[in-house]
């Protein structure tokens, strides 16, 4: 199977990237000023206590030895224990990942729908008022700081209008939802608890909207530009000059060709969203991956930072792999 071989080859290419990323993280955070051990031992600790704590986390060994031990652990599926909370990193990770993913998947979905529909609509009306409106909106959206936008939305929809819940938590405290998948909108539905489901969506509303507004801009512009390029191409003009029906023209000759270049950009946006979700999480007190990593970074919690970078890098590479597969599926000229 050519496709399987391609996917395997791409996954093998993931290995050097992950090794490079982990080495870089490992070295960078250890040359950072600040010693995690000093942050966790009590103030009365003696030199010997500190030394003991250091040994417990293996921090007394040479850097190369520490890295190899770490690599061995990771290969066995052990991401280590957090220095500050002394809980397994993997456990925290499985709790945090769904929170962030839920946020960015909804935002991405919303943004893609708006971008594709709006971009093609604008391109077909190039130069007319509706097109100009779309372009100005995209330009403005591209200039918005998402953390400020989040605050402004809170100000309007929570403070002034009272339509949104307070920016804290992912569901009203009245509901208790035992985690099944970790995705709260899914879990509430699985339990058939519709009011809880509604509450979860209600809490997702503003953060998702904030992210969606910011990321729609580049996607919309790209879709509009691709659609314009198709409309101006000889292949589309030829189909049009042969009097094809509007629906056929739109779906078979415009839509698909416009989408060919979308996966790569969408992957880039999606990847950056995971690494950059921290700002919006911060504004909405969303206990996701970004906040977790930020805290880990401030407290120099090495295993947490290492795990975070590894997860984000893997995700990044996988998203691009999926994008390339999608593109190959859309464009017969691309060989996988």
């Amino acid at each position, binding site marked *: 199977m050519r496709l399987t071989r391609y996917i395997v080859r791409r996954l093998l290419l993931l290995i050097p990237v992950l090794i*490079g990323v982990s080495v870089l993280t490992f070295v960078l955070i250890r040359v950072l000023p600040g010693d995690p051990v000093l942050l966790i031992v009590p103030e009365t600790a003696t030199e010997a206590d500190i030394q003991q704590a250091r040994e417990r986390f293996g921090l007394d060994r040479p850097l190369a030895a520490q890295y190899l031990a770490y690599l061995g652990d990771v290969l066995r599926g052990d991401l280590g224990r957090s220095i500050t909370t002394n809980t397994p990193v993997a456990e925290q990770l499985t709790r945090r990942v769904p929170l962030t993913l839920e946020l960015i998947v909804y935002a991405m979905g919303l943004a893609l729908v708006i971008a594709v529909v709006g971009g093609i609509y604008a391109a077909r009306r190039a130069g007319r008022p509706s097109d100009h409106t779309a372009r100005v909106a995209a330009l403005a959206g591209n*200039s918005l700081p998402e953390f400020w936008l989040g605050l402004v939305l809170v100000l309007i929809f929570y*403070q002034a209008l009272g339509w949104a819940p307070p920016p804290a938590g992912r569901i009203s405290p009245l509901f208790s939802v035992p985690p099944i998948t970790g995705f709260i909108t899914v879990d509430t539905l699985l339990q058939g608890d519709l009011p809880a489901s509604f509450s979860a969506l209600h809490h997702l509303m503003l953060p998702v909207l904030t992210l969606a507004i910011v990321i729609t801009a580049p996607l919309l512009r790209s879709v509009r530009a691709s659609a314009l390029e198709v409309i101006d191409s000889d292949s589309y003009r030829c189909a049009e000059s042969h009097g094809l029906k509007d629906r056929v023209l739109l779906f078979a000759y415009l839509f698909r060709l416009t989408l060919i270049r979308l996966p790569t950009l969408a992957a880039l946006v999606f990847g950056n969203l995971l690494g950059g979700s921290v700002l919006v999480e911060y504004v909405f007190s969303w206990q996701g991956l970004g906040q977790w990593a930020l805290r880990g*970074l401030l407290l120099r919690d090495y295993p947490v*930072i290492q795990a975070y970078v590894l997860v984000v890098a893997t995700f*990044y590479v996988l998203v691009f792999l999926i994008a390339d597969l999608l593109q190959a599926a859309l464009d017969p000229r691309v060989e996988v």
Partner: protein
Amino acid sequence: MAVVDDLTHPPAKRVRRGGDGLIAAGSLILLIVLFGAVAAPWLSQWGPTEIDPIAFLEPPGPGHWLGTDGNGMDIWSRILFAARIDLGVAVASVALAVLVGGTIGLATGYAGGWVEETTMRLLDIVQAFPVFILALTVAALLGNSLHTLILAIGLINAPAYARLMRAEVRSLKSHIYIEAAECAGNSRLSILFRHLLPNALTPLLVIAPLNCGWAILMLAGLSFLGLGVAVPTAEWGAMISTGAADVVGGRWWTSVFPGLALFITVLGFNLIGEGLLQRTGQRR
């Protein structure tokens, strides 16, 4: 135009593509912001870190046009002074990124072969790194100052320029005038600097304004998380962060105004960038 005799053919006119309006609007915005930054001491009666002991969290009014923050500092004054830092860091970091990234891209794109392959894989690794972690580690490594922020933001941006430059050089290499230059007896260095570089530089400079906007957002974002410019130095992101807690209490002016300044400035850069893209025919 059918040419009767190619020797009497008049010089062709340069094709205009529009985008001038966007560039003018963006330039106007940035000129105003720049004027505010330069003339800050004369435009405000308060210093950027001066505390008015009788006005904490005062709403906009005659004494403090845009109100004061929780420390009793004048927001209008701080917004003006912050422009100095935000504009300065943005322009300097993008200049650094163009210089470093451009050089790497030019060298690898022209060299080709394993040099190119290796460099590109290294850039893959850097780009798969979460941006905030990278910025923070660089900043923390070299001390928390404006210079390190410039360095951090510049270096994060450099791989993108390296890729762009490399792509540009590779596509230029397929032009016949590069082959013609070799036939004319140019040395490799001469081809690189006389024929490739001047043509490859334009696209890099065209996206620079867009990147300045992005760099400001980056700086403000870092400061918002407390990882950038240290309080009480006036910086838009840091100001929004200070005011964030007050928003829920209804004191909106502390973060809304600095955010507006940030938004408008980035919009100015983006307008120019978009206009330049249109003018060079890369976008319509």
